[in-house]
Every structure is written in C-alpha cells, then in structure tokens.
C-alpha cells in the first residue's frame, strides 16, 4: 500500500497521479463501471453500422428464431432482429436518460437559485411546492403524471423530469443561501446589477458543481424509470425500440422464447449497474472520511 502522502506529493509533478486518479485506479469496481458504460456508449453510437438489420421493419418469415449466427439475440414476434433493437434501445435509453436529467437539473438549479436569492414569500411558495412533489413516491407520481398527459415517450420524459426537479431545487437553494451573503454578490447588488443577471452570472456558476455531481448519480435512476414506464405501457410506444416496452411485449413469450425479453433486460441491467458503480465511486472519492 502506498502512503497517501507520497501520492499527494507526486501530484505536483504529474497530473496522472492526481489524488482522484489515484483513488480511481485503486477502485476496481468504479473502473469496471466506466468500462461497461464506455462499451455501452460505443455500441449505442455504432448501432446502425454494427448490424445489417432495420430495428423497425417487419419480416414475418423470420419470427421467433432462437439465437444463431445470423441473429445473435434471436428475433421477435414479427421477425425483427433483437440485437439490432437492443442496440438502438441503448441509443434511446442513454440519450433520453441524460436529456431528462439535464432538463431537470437546469430547471432545478434556476428555480432553486431564484428561490434562495429572493427568499421571503417566493421562497416559501417554491419550497412548499417542492415538499408536495416529494410527498409522493417517485414512481407513482411519474405514473400518474404520464397517465394524465397521455402515454408517450415525450410525456414520460416530462413526468420524470418533474419528479426529479425537487432534488436540484433543494441543492441549488442551499448553495445560494450561502452565496448570497458573499461579498462579491453583495457588491454586485450595490453596483446596481439586477437580481436576474446576478443569479445567472454570479450565483449559478458557483452553485453548479454539487448539482452536476447529483445529476451524474441520477442518470441511472432516470434510465430505470423510463424503462419501467415503458414496461407499464406508459412510455415509448411500439414499435419504438425501447428496452422497457420490448421487455413488456417479450414478457408474454417468456417461457417459450426466453431470449426475447432477456437480452434487452441484460443490457438495461448492465447500463444502470455501470452508472451505479460509477456513482458509488464518485461518492467514495468525494467523501473525505473514506481514505481508500
């Protein structure tokens, strides 16, 4: 075991021995998480070139074929290649998961900063609304929202973003409460700069890092929720290649054609597992108490 002191001395010489790198290198689980995620992103990006099949076009002549060299993951009830659909599903899930969290974080940080900066009645109203949203179990609220808006991928994304917003509002608000007492913010106000420019230029850039960390931790969760809504028939609608809705249809054929729901399920599990491993690692690295 290398003494941490030596490690931090080495930092000055070489950026590759920076403490975060050092911790990361010695945290195998996190590294595995990064590798899986990287592989998943590459597969998602290359999906159209990796397989010769179309993810949506029907080919009834080849329905329910088991895994073979022609169709590594088999085919579904209308003869579409499951590998192709799973890879396109990776595109959709990763993209949508990231997008939902970015939307939630952007709205959350702005609302939180406004609420914290102005304080008073605005703050009271905003925080009580957030308390209301937090009073629901997340999945149930997302379900009710999507059901009301009408089942579709877009509406599922809106619903999940709304459900995720309160976390970011709270984070940004508590950062803002500290920042607004800082000299540079107060002097900006004295110089006559209006509140909104102060929030945009001085508060948000300084409150952004905890929000970004929280956001990375939540991407996996968002992906799982999208898949769950898809599974319940509330998210992406067929024939969109989405993991949750693929599993929801494949599920009916489980005992006869096991490959149909299993492969999209494995991909979903690997993706969210990789994101959770990374999240754990990030938490470990940022926690001053853990010295490994």
């Amino acid at each position: 075991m290398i003494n941490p002191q030596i490690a931090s001395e080495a930092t000055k010489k070489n950026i590759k021995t920076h403490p975060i790198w050092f911790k990361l290198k010695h945290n195998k689980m996190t590294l595995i998480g990064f590798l899986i995620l990287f592989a998943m992103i590459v597969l998602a990006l290359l999906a159209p070139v990796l397989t010769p099949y179309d993810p949506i076009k029907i080919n009834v002549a080849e329905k329910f074929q088991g895994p073979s060299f022609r169709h590594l993951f088999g085919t579904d009830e209308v003869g579409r290649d499951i590998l192709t659909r799973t890879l396109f599903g990776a595109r959709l899930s990763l993209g949508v998961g990231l997008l939902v969290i970015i939307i939630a974080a952007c709205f959350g940080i702005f609302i939180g900063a406004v609420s914290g900066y102005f304080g008073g009645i605005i703050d009271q109203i905003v925080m009580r609304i957030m308390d209301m949203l937090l009073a629901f179990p997340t999945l149930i609220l997302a379900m009710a929202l999507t059901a009301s808006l009408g089942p579709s991928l877009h509406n599922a994304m809106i619903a999940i973003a709304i459900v995720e917003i309160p976390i970011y509002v709270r984070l940004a608000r508590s950062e803002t409460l500290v920042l607004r007492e800082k000299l540079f913010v107060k002097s900006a106000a004295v110089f006559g700069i209006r509140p909104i420019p102060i929030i945009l230029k001085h508060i948000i850039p300084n409150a952004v890092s905890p929000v970004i960390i929280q956001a990375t931790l939540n991407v996996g969760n968002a992906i799982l929720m999208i898949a769950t809504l898809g599974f319940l028939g509330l998210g992406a609608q067929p024939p969109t290649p989405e993991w949750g809705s693929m599993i929801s249809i494949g599920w009916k054929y489980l005992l006869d054609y096991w490959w149909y729901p299993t492969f999209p399920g494995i991909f979903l599990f690997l993706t969210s597992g990789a994101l959770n491993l990374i999240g754990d690692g990030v938490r470990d690295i940022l926690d001053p108490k853990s010295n490994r």
Partner: protein
Amino acid sequence: MMKMVMRRIAFLVFVIFGVSLVTFVLSHIIPGDPASMMAGQHASKQTVEHIRQQLGLDQPILIQYVEYVKGVLSGDFGTSIRTQNPVIDDLANYFPATLELAIAAFIIAILLGIPLGIVSAVKKNQFWDHASRIFSISGVSIPVFFSGLVAILIFYGYLNWFPANGRIDMTINPPTRITSFYIIDSLLSGDMIALKSSLQHIILPALVLSYAQLAIITRQVRASMLEVLSQEYIRTAKANGIHGYKLLIRYALRNALVPTVTVIGTSFGALLGGAVVTETIFDWPGMGKYVVDSIAYLDFPAIMGFTLFISIGYVLINLMVDITYFILNPQLKE
C-alpha cells in the same frame, strides 16, 4: 418531542392538501371528456350532459376542487369508470393483498439485509464484502420487472419449484376471511392446505420485490457499522476483552441501527410503490395490478384515487419513521 410531533402533524395536513391538489389538477388536464368517456361511445348528448351534471363537471373549477376535497376527507375517492364501484371500495378490496406482499418483502429485506451488512463491514475488503457489494449494486440496478422475469424463468419455468401467478392455487379455496391476509387467515383457521399454497405463492414475488430494498439496507448497515466500529468506545470495549458476538451486536449494532431506521422506514414506502410492477408480473391481485389495469383503461378516478391513497400512506410512514428516529436517538431530545 411533543412539539416536534405536533409540527409534523400540521405539516402532514398541509401535505395531504397539496397531494390532493396535485391529483385534482392531474385529473383535470387529461385529454378528452370524462363524462363522454363514462357514458360510452353510443350515448346520446343528453346522457352525457346528465352524467356531467352528476359528476359536478358543469360547476366552476374551484367549487369542483372544494367538492373533491370534501369527498376525499369523507373517504369518497370517486367512482371507477372500469369497475363502476366506488374507488375506495376497490382499493379496500385490493389493499390487503398488497400489504401482505409488502410486509413479506419487508421482513425478508430486514432479516437478510442487516446480517449481510454486518458481515460486509466486519470482513471489509475481503471476499464476503465484495460478494455482498456486488449483490447490493445489482439490487439497486436491476429493474423489478427484469428480476421478476428471471425468477419466473428459473424457479417456475425450469425448476418448477414455485407457482408464478396469483395469491393461492386456483383449485384451493381461500381461507376463511378474518384479516384478509391469506397466510394469517389460514393459520388462524388451521387450514394447512391453504397455508402451504399461499406461502408457495408469496415467496417469489416477495423475494423479487424485496431485492432492491434489501440492497439499500445492506449498504446502509455496512456504512454505519464501519463508522461505528472505528470509534473509540469500540476500541475501549475490545481492550476490556469484549469481543465477537457481544461486541458486534450489543455494542456496535445498537448505534449503527439508528441511521438505518430511516432507510428501513422509507424502504417500506418504496415497497408499496414497487408493488405496482411486481403485482403486474406475478398477477398478484393487489392495488398495483388494479391501477395498471386502470391505466390501460384510462380510468382516472381509479388512478388518482390510488395515487392519493399511496401518497397519504407514504407520508404517514415517513412521520412514523421520524418519530421512531427521535425516540431511538436520545441526543435529539433537548
């Protein structure tokens, strides 16, 4: 203490109002007209108008909300479009099945989660720790509908050890209704056949439902055990010759459990939510399956009634967790 509880109860009333406001707004932004939906496709204009009046949909929105809250307070959650029953009766019918499943999953999660967490902390960075960490990372990463699928494929499809649908075998009469919990009822009435069948039926869904919460509890127990074990009083106790079981359970675990209580409490709320998916997969006749069927039918009174019911339950559980936490942690008493 009393002040804290009073404040929390005041907050609870506020939250219930808020939750009802949210569900009310949600059921009013739905596309389409509930009155014509309820009347069916071939109804005349007059019938639709009549239903609209009956439902109070011709009133101003504010009055509608007041009526809605009045109804909720007196237990009237509206009438289900699909079953034509009052939603509250439907929920009352399906609730015991959900509660039985959630409690079974809860017991599994606690009974396995706490020992796993302790072992993981004591054997930090050894084989069992790594194994239990992989196990718990999988638990939070695997969606319930996929773990359920794998469980059915293996334990029902290949091994045929457990049945995979319903609460009890179709050929067996349910036990005499006392508590509506099949396991307790069959025990009370001494109906061993029903007991065996209902136990067999509950094992797979309860295990699948408990997995995520089991993982979260294991993680929490591991983290707080590690923290407690590095404290001075544990070292002193060790120096005084206390070791093994007594040190771990009587000295360390007691303090490690305080932060765990919060996690355990919230996990029960999460189990009620997770039940929606689990019940769909295992065809378990509970509230979750009821609401998923209602979603397919766009039965909004039922969906919103369920959401309101679960959320109120969730808030109540959180209140109880806070109070327990308060009692367990004497430092919080001023």
